[in-house]
């Protein structure tokens, strides 16, 4: 009985740790190393001018329909927030990463990712962000975030992620 309880507790702890990783890890672009802990290099989520705040509260990414680069209504809401944040925090630059799901040929997906990144950049510029603060890059299908082969993963991989930096801009 004791043994069984302990085993259950261990499994629970492990499950909680896993879900914390999946949801709470700070991310500076999907290629960057996750820095765990609210006081990491990305600052505190409670500090509205921190990268952590931008990534988690404003939202650093928008999603796209299959083979599309149209900014939909929910993406607009996220990007409106990004534009506002970028204008109140002018020391930051942004690199918009465009991605595709695996259901496409490699080079086409590279072009599709570029189209998505450009759509986000154009939208941010239309909302007042200076064009020279935003750069774009495409990863095509080279860097999936989720690795299963069905729509639940594909929908998360068809994305554009705004990665903040403090570089000199474009």
């Amino acid at each position, binding site marked *: 009985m004791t043994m069984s309880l302990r085993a259950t507790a261990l499994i629970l702890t492990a499950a909680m740790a896993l879900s914390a990783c999946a949801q709470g890890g700070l991310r500076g672009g*999907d290629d960057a190393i996750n820095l765990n802990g609210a006081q990491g290099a990305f600052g505190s989520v409670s500090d509205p001018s921190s990268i952590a705040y931008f990534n988690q509260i404003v939202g650093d990414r928008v999603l796209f329909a299959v*083979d599309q*680069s149209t900014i939909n209504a929910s993406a607009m809401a996220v990007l409106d927030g990004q534009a506002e944040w970028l204008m109140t925090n002018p020391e930051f630059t942004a690199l918009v990463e465009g991605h595709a799901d*695996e*259901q*496409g*040929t*490699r*080079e*086409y997906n*590279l*072009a*599709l990712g*570029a*189209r998505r*990144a*450009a*759509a986000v*950049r*154009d939208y941010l510029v239309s909302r007042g962000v200076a064009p020279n603060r935003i*750069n*774009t*890059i*495409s*990863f095509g299908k*080279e*860097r*999936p*975030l*989720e*690795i*299963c*082969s069905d729509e639940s993963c594909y929908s998360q991989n068809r994305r554009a992620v705004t990665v903040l930096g403090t570089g000199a801009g*474009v």
Partner: protein
Amino acid sequence: MLLTRRSLIRSASVFAAAATLPGLVRAQTRPLRLEITEGVIEPLPFAIPSFIARNGAAADAAADITRVIAADLRGTGLFRQIPDSAHISSVTNFDAPILYPDWQAINAQALIVGEVEQQGGRLIVRFRLFDVFSQQPLGDGLQFVGTRDGWRRMAHNVADQVYERITGETGYFDTRVVFVHEEGPKNARLKRLALMDYDGANVQFLTDSRSIVMAPRFSPTGDRIIYTSYESGQPRVYIMDVASVSRRPLEAVSAGNMTFSPRFTADGGSVVFSMEQGGNTDIYRVPVSGGARSQLTNAPSIETAPSFSPDGSRMVFESDRTGGQQIYVMPAGGGEVQRISRGSGRYGTPVWSPRGDYIAFTKQERGRFHIGVMRTNGSEERLLTASFLDEGPTWAPNGRVLMFTRETAGANGAPAVYSVDISGRNLQRVATPGMASDPSWSPRLP
């Protein structure tokens, strides 16, 4: 590991094979010939007794060369090897008369006899091919001379000769393949450019795994490779000299403009590639030696994956100008664009056959991927494969076999290189040291 190209001197010395073989009886008049057609082919049975080692030093090479020749021929799906255990005759002297009845009795239609001699660091390989039922040699005996460590190429040269004499098609065994070697989990893949013999032997890495690389292509002479790398931080076209493994960016491109999908023109003097500006991708052309860039397509859609006809007069490419990926042909110098893909689904990665007769492509329809071929006007479309994800065909130099990438589904999905012939037969996985993608077949080695 660095491999250098071995010199292989092809000696055209013909040693009058027929003259040494007395008393030939012609049992049939039709010479041995295998037509490669679209229909089902019964593999042609052949026998290859282990090549004779003329001296002790050549024993290993003789056995290895025999094994590779047999594997080349079997791998085509056109030939069936009769096991040595079924042989009645043994061949102990390269110049001895062939006991045709012994080979007829086991239904060997072709017989390959050879010998290997080692002199210092050099190998000499001689072979003869016999048409067993016509009871005569098929072509002259040939001798190849090369370095000891060039034995695989010598074996491939013998196999090419046998293949050519029996099928009338150019052989493709003495060739190499540049591809992308992959390691690591699906969401953090490491990629390296690598080179291998067409059969997976002699793997050589050309780049390290620090930057994503993709879609390499050989130059028409095989001495250069062009590919896309993230080395500078963004996708950019690089050109590499194969012998020295030195590389340089194809041209200076301003930041923010991604270049990718490079291919050599038919004469190798220029490169066509895609460049993205502000989200829009078009195809451009630039001389390898530097010079002005010219724009070949100008549309608000994605234009990519160009490929030239062997005569250099036309270019095939993919575009999503009508909404989804389709295949188009245009004159090489620019001009009227004609859509050639007509079926349902999406069509991409068109590659013009080195023979000029077909265009290979990737087709995507209802969640499945196919490798297919069509005539250059889009007619006679045939799908050769089907799977979760097949893409990126590349032609063998004789235009009769294709390699492509096949990736399996799921979190543990992995890419591998496969080959298939243009009738859709003989689907095989190519032996690679690990996960592999984006193969590009070299021309015949010089």
